[in-house]
């Protein structure tokens, strides 16, 4: 296995406990029916236990997963316990107050179902990640953020209470008023502090189910950072796409999309109709994500997305453009892909963002999707990802050099005081993660108080936190 000088991998990456034939070739085996994988299709041996009754199913279990949309190994089991509880069948609504918008539901309730039911009634999830195929439990565990992070923070800010099964088997309801430590450790705690059973969430009232959106084409990275800052003052939803192959003068070109809910007067009278979804029916050959195709794709996306004035668009097209193609992760071929999402603090300045992009474009690590977003203040969650600064997310097809690319990116992130998003990660080294995360000790202390024996764990926590395999 490749190592970077100065870093010895003491903690097994999940490649190291896989069968030899996998460990010796590429970092990851191919997904089959006896393996579990995240969205990046990096697989480990494992099995899902589907159950409507989470309280029963989580007894004795070491990990619960939702819809497995985390990219890396967050929802994958440690090698000694290949069974993971799957929550999506536990999707009952427990209470809803139509005056205040407070919703309580079982952890497997998905944003997709929430939209179907509550969009027509004038409510929306207070924070939405880039896909609707996520569960409430998964959103809390990853403390997801969305296009409105600069205004509304991450999902944790809107969570009122969490009911969970802790490692001892006890069922605990935690909130800001009751067991606040456990509450804060669970928001963004990657499901490692307990199995999330129920979530109470404050929904956001919306004036109409349609989005008013505007798009601006942007020539380089400096213009991008200025535009993001400028738009943040006027628009509740912003995000940018960057062509991260172009170098030099064009480095960091792309487009910036802003939006807000349309007012009742602006919105069409009909509710948004369900969208037709295409599907990638099979796992594609890996030349499809080669550098050449990446270059062409980035060029086309850049030229296609010209500046456009205000227009009304379907909320799913605005929030979840990628959901239009089911199984799009199959485009990355049998070896799958990973995402590197980091946030660079404002204190590191614009120069840091420029350097990260330069690092990437110089290496020629063709990324198809590179998303940039300005983050607001850090949330309450002790391991929550966002902090005031700029977040950059890159999709990277898994290649022989992926580990080296991630190591190099992470060394840079450590040097500027940033951090990576665990829900996307599969390749970060434990040493790098510790160096990025000064809050880790405080979080671990709370985790240990509720789980002294270290029972609850995932492939990711084995890799990054030194848990027993």
């Amino acid at each position, binding site marked *: 296995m490749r190592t970077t000088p100065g870093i010895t991998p003491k903690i097994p990456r999940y490649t190291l406990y896989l069968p030899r034939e996998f460990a010796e070739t590429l970092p990851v085996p191919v997904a089959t*029916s006896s393996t579990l994988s995240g969205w990046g299709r990096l697989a480990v041996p494992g*099995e899902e*236990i*589907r*159950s*409507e009754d989470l309280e029963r199913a989580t007894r004795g279990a070491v990990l619960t997963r939702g819809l497995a949309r985390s990219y890396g190994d967050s929802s994958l089991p440690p090698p000694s316990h290949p069974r993971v509880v799957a929550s999506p069948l536990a999707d009952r*609504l*427990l*209470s809803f107050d139509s005056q205040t918008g407070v919703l309580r539901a079982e952890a497997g309730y998905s944003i997709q179902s929430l939209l179907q*039911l509550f969009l027509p009634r004038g409510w929306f999830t207070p924070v939405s990640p880039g896909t609707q195929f996520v569960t409430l439990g998964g959103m809390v565990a990853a403390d997801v953020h969305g296009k409105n992070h600069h205004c509304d923070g991450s999902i944790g800010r809107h969570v009122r209470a969490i009911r969970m099964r802790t490692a001892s088997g006890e069922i605990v309801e935690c909130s800001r008023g009751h067991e606040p430590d456990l509450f804060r450790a669970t928001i963004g705690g990657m499901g490692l502090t307990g199995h999330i059973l129920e979530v109470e969430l404050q929904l956001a009232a919306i004036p109409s189910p349609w989005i008013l959106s505007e798009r601006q084409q942007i020539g380089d990275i400096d213009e991008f950072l200025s535009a993001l800052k400028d738009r943040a003052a006027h628009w509740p939803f912003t995000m940018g796409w960057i062509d991260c192959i172009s170098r030099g003068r064009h480095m960091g070109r792309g487009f910036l999309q802003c939006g807000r809910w349309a007012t009742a007067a602006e919105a069409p009278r009909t509710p948004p109709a369900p969208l037709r979804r295409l599907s990638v029916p099979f796992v594609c050959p890996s030349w499809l994500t080669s550098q050449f195709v990446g270059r062409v794709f980035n060029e086309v996306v850049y030229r296609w997305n010209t500046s456009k004035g205000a227009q009304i668009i379907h909320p799913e097209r605005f929030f979840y453009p990628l959901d239009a193609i089911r199984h799009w992760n199959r485009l990355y071929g049998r070896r799958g892909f990973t995402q590197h999402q980091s946030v660079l603090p404002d204190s590191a300045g614009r120069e840091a963002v420029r350097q990260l992009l330069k690092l990437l474009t110089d290496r020629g690590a063709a990324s198809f999707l590179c998303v940039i977003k300005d983050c607001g203040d850090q949330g309450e969650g002790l391991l929550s990802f966002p902090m005031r600064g700029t977040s950059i997310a890159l999709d990277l097809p898994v290649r022989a050099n992926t580990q080296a690319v991630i190591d190099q990116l992470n060394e840079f992130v450590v040097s500027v005081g940033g951090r990576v998003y665990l829900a996307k990660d599969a390749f970060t080294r434990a040493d790098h993660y510790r160096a990025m995360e000064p809050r880790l000790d405080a979080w671990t202390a709370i985790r240990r108080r509720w789980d002294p024996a270290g029972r609850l764990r995932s492939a990711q926590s084995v890799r990054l936190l030194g848990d027993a395999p």
Partner: protein
Amino acid sequence: MKIVILGATKGIGRAVARRLAARGDQLFLLGRDQQDLERSAGDLAIRGSQTARPGTAVCDLGDPRTFLPALDAAAAALSSVDCVVVTAADFGTQDALEADLERTRQLLDVNFTNTIVFCESARTRLLARGGTLCVLSSVAGDRGRKPVVLYGAAKAGLSYYLEGLDHKYRLDGLRVVCVKPGFVKTSMTSGLKPPPFAGEPDGVAADIVRAIDRGQPVVYTPRIWRLVMLVIRLLPRAVMRRIGF
């Protein structure tokens, strides 16, 4: 419509109940666990369009003494009943059943004897003047097959009962719907490897609701299973002995 559902707290039954509640049907839920029933009733009340919260009563397919009180409670709450849906059933893998005779007896009782006794009670009590009886059988009952020898035998018996009922009472206004789901990804099949054409509970529920509305006597769902089972039924014995399906 006023509909009684046995098995609405889980799996396909849960998905059917949600579709019915969403379009405004009035429901009454039967199931084993009162607390679980209440939770599902609450869920349906939030999802339902304008309907009142569904009533509930305990009814256990393992215990026929619970049938009549439960049906009486449903009749009292709904005043008239248009449709009875049975989605509850027992399941065990062939290996687990072969290893435990008592478990086998229990499964055959629940899926065959007691289900039929429940249907008879519903027919005489609730649907005497017509209505729809919709019962989940299975594609496993279409042919004796290695992985479902025992489960399939009970479902085959159930399918034949439902067909006979349809022949005898259709002209009197009783519409019998026999649903034959293929592999559906529910908690019942958790741990089994999904074959090709495995269905999702919500899609299956859409097919079932449509079949109830039309009074279709037999419905395969997902629909591709009609074709799959046609082929399976036509395979000669010599072939069936050799394949694992």
